[in-house]
């Protein structure tokens, strides 16, 4: 069983953290498991956690009247779910559902925010890392929005 530290520092978003930073972050983390179909969080709920997926697929769902439940994205191993913990109003924008068995490292966002207030250098580093996550997700989402497959012609 690998340690929490090892799992965290292996992930793309936390790669290169020094030992001190790692300890600070790991102090707010714990291992967690979700069974297939289980809900990780609900749209509208207070967002004080985020997840680093280790295994399995998490679907981000929205309920749309007349269309039912829509999955807007799935997030897999190595990826982060949740950034609403970082910035107010700290609310989940989608519902998170485990598509299959999901193992994740769960982070206490409130705990991390407090540590960032105390250690601005750590705070700046985390913001930078999460900004990168956001940017690459935004690019992907924009491409998704373009609905390009509707235009392919023969």
């Amino acid at each position, binding site marked *: 069983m690998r340690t929490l530290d090892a799992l965290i520092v292996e992930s793309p978003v936390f790669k290169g953290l020094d030992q001190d930073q790692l300890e600070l972050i790991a102090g707010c983390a714990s291992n967690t498991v979700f069974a297939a179909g289980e809900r990780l969080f609900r749209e509208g709920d207070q967002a004080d956690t985020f997840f680093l997926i280790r295994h399995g697929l998490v679907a981000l769902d929205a309920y749309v009247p007349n269309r039912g439940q829509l999955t807007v994205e799935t997030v897999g191993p190595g990826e982060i779910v949740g950034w609403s913990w970082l910035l107010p109003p700290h609310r989940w924008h989608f519902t998170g559902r485990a598509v299959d068995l999901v193992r994740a490292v769960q982070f206490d966002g409130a705990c991390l925010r407090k540590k960032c207030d105390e250690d601005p250098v750590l705070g700046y580093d985390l913001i930078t890392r999460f900004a990168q996550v956001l940017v690459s997700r935004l690019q992907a989402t924009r491409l998704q929005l373009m609905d390009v497959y509707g*235009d*392919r*012609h*023969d």
Partner: protein
Amino acid sequence: MPSKGTNEPAVLAAEDLDALIDALRDEGYRVVGPTVRDGAIVYAELGAASALPAGWTDEQAPGSYRLARREDGALFGYAVGPHSWKQELLPPRVRLWQTRRQQDGGFVVDEEPPPPEPTAFVGVRPCELAAIEIQDRVFLGGRFRDRDYAARRSDVFLVAVDCGDPSSLCFCTSVGGGPGATEGFDLALTELLDGGHRFLIRPGSPSGEAVLQKLPVTAASDADLEEARLVVARAARDMEGRFDSTDLHDLLLRNLESPQWDAVAERCLTCGNCTLVCPTCFCTHVEDANALDGSTAERTRVWDTCFSVQYAEMHGGNTRPTPRARYRQWLTHKLATWEDQFGSIGCVGCGRCIAWCPVGIDIREEVRSIRAEEEEHAHA
């Protein structure tokens, strides 16, 4: 004394030009050449030499074409008119094939037979010879040949006439051409006016020699040869400096985002006149049509223009919706990417697109502006 069986240039008196037309007709050719109609010199079937535009010249400027009277009776004393020989080799509408349904649900395709009559083109300018050669590369030089073009082309007899009176819009010497015909013809004429109205006539092929032997020609003197040389030299000198074609291909492809394209787009009506009169523009589209009862169908090839909005339409949109993009496509194709596609520049410097543009866009000016803009930018 008639000179027979040699490659030497000979002299044909102007009043004997009908002998040439008759000889061509005797060989089975339908003769097409220049004639005045509707205020322009156009190409039409010629009955006799009397139909030629004797004593007429053209005065051309951007957006302007006028006929004017000459003081002499020159038969070919003009530059070029709105027609080009592509209307014979690549007619505006050609049915390619017809098809009819069969009992078993299949269909049979009947290709259109080749045109019945071989044609002689009389009065082909050297720039037009160049244009024909350029279209030969497109239609005959690739992996797939154009069947209809090949058929018409193989039956053509070309009588070239050197240029003695380029218009102010001509710039053939700037794009690798010149006012004297050097190759690609069956017979070439140079009109001489001093010391008697006559033509220096020289063969360019065995077919040309065969026709030449039937004509009442006399031997060409040194004076005749010198006068002919001067006609061409003077025409070439008149066109000097008309167009700077240095580094033309790369210049245009370096400047695909030049603000000049926006400037010309403000004026261009995308009417496509330039593509209609251009002797090398070859774009076509096909129309598929069927009879109302669905039993027969046919396909027709029709002239198209890259200026039309539909040209770049696909399901899902249009890749060149703006006039800016379409003008850029035409000019960069003609002067730059044609070379990448077919191995030679697409323009022959005939100036037709300049004369027949309703707003007088001058491609020489457009290139000059792009060059100047690039230079200005570089020193900014």
